[in-house]
């Protein structure tokens, strides 16, 4: 059986950037479609709680 190729190898990049805005700017400069998320800590900044929430998703 032929091993699977990650689909993204054949696709144009469409990027959501969470965190440093610099990375979004750099992608934009390369004409790559990118949306920068004005990120704020989830769960009111409580990382432990954020992780609980993430773990609860199936």
């Amino acid at each position, binding site marked *: 059986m032929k091993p699977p190729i990650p689909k993204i190898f054949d696709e144009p990049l469409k990027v*959501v950037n969470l965190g440093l805005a610099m990375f979004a700017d750099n992608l934009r400069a390369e004409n790559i479609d990118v949306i920068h998320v004005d990120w704020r800590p989830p769960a009111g900044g409580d990382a432990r709680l954020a992780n609980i929430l993430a773990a609860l998703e199936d």
Partner: protein
Amino acid sequence: MPIRTEILPSFYQDSVVLMRVAAQVKKEQAVREVAAFMGTDTNKALLAQTGLATSESAAATAEDLILTVDADTEERAASALERVAELLAERRDGGGKDAEVSPHTLDSALRLMPDANLATISVPGEFVRFEALRALRRGLNVFVFSDNVPVADEVELKKEALSRGLLCMGPDCGTAYLNGAGLGFYNVTTRGRVGCVAASGTGLQAVASRLAHLGEGVSHGIGVGGRDLSAEVGGMMTLFALRGLAADPVTKAIVLISKPPHKDVVPRLSETLREIDKPVVVCCLGSNKDFGGRTVNVRTLDEAAHAAVAQLRGETWAPAAFGDPAAVAGRLDTSVGDGDLAGAAVLGLFTGGTLAHEAHLLLTEGLGDVGFNGDLTDRSRKHNVIDLGDDAYTVGRPHPMIAPEIRTDFIRRLSVDSTAGVLILDIVLGVGAHDDPAAPVVEALGDVQAAYAAAGRRLAVVASVVGTPGDPQNLGRQISQLTEAGVHVFATNAEAARFAAMVAEPKLGRKLAGSD
């Protein structure tokens, strides 16, 4: 009179939010009316009586929300309606209390770009699991630049990624190339035929830069993070990426850049490497393990690039200590002088972790015991290599590739409290790095050299520059700044390290430079 409506089927909003949004838009956009009603018959009759009904609102059901805008012009009505929908979506995502357009969460971003296929994540490490897991579950590949992510989180993220056939690059992935586009910190190169799987950002940068220098390029460069080949993570992403590149039609040769894999991972890695029917070059710094099959095992990043290019072109190639040994020998004789640095202590101050590691290995080979990330005030070790990107040195400051002060502080301190006679440095260029990294180094070296001269001491400085002519910093200008300051500049970190060792140990010089 322009009336516009929009129906949001089976969509509920807190009435509070609804009203606030309506009031806000009404004020903001100077329209006569913005109303949000459930599509009950009585409300539809009301809209009809007040002249606010449209064919859309007439078709709404009691479970639908009817957004109605009444404005002077068609354009105003349309733009107000857009604004309402935008604010509602924003609030529905728990984005925030303020009325801002830019999304605050992954999900609100996905509403604007539903076909996104990659999330680049550089949020604090403790929140990586939350964001990356969500991204993977929404079907996005992830590139996690953040470090300080617990290894258990990494395992979970990579399992999730694999179960969905997605890439999880990182955590602590500094560099990647996908479809010719660079991610994180990367050197500007044209796309090529060499697929890379790299446990280290600077390792990948060094290989990509060398490939560019040799006229080749990267097809995809998959960063996997420094812990992928640990026992806990089990090489999950390395194996997945290798198989992917093996099947990728653009990729004609593969380079694996890694640290020595954990022994539990070796069998799986060997098996995967053997199954690949393309040339594979393995640069496993610090290990001489032969993985068999078609793999070519190399010892340095530069050799990895050379070996891959040779394979692609069907050329024969053998590793050499220096590209131009005669020039090195000449430089050793004329520039360094009469062996008065023989026996000097070597100090490496690196911004690239893998470059530090590679230099440490080569220096150890030549000089014996060399400390790594030790305490410099402890004089028990003569030779030392420091990776200034290590948490112990950055302590909350930006990475030294962005903020050169971390290293220039160290360099300036040499004049007061160091025994070092040979200094080895790396200058890493590329997108994301400092815009003129050689300049602060040269300035600090000037101070140190003056202090050394006053004390009647000598300091030889050796450096390599990782970069391409396409990089924003101007490769030529970076090199000339260093050379003008008397720095011995080499094209590769391995050459710089070997040269540094030879300055401190002239016997090596004769052996190494003459060995070719």
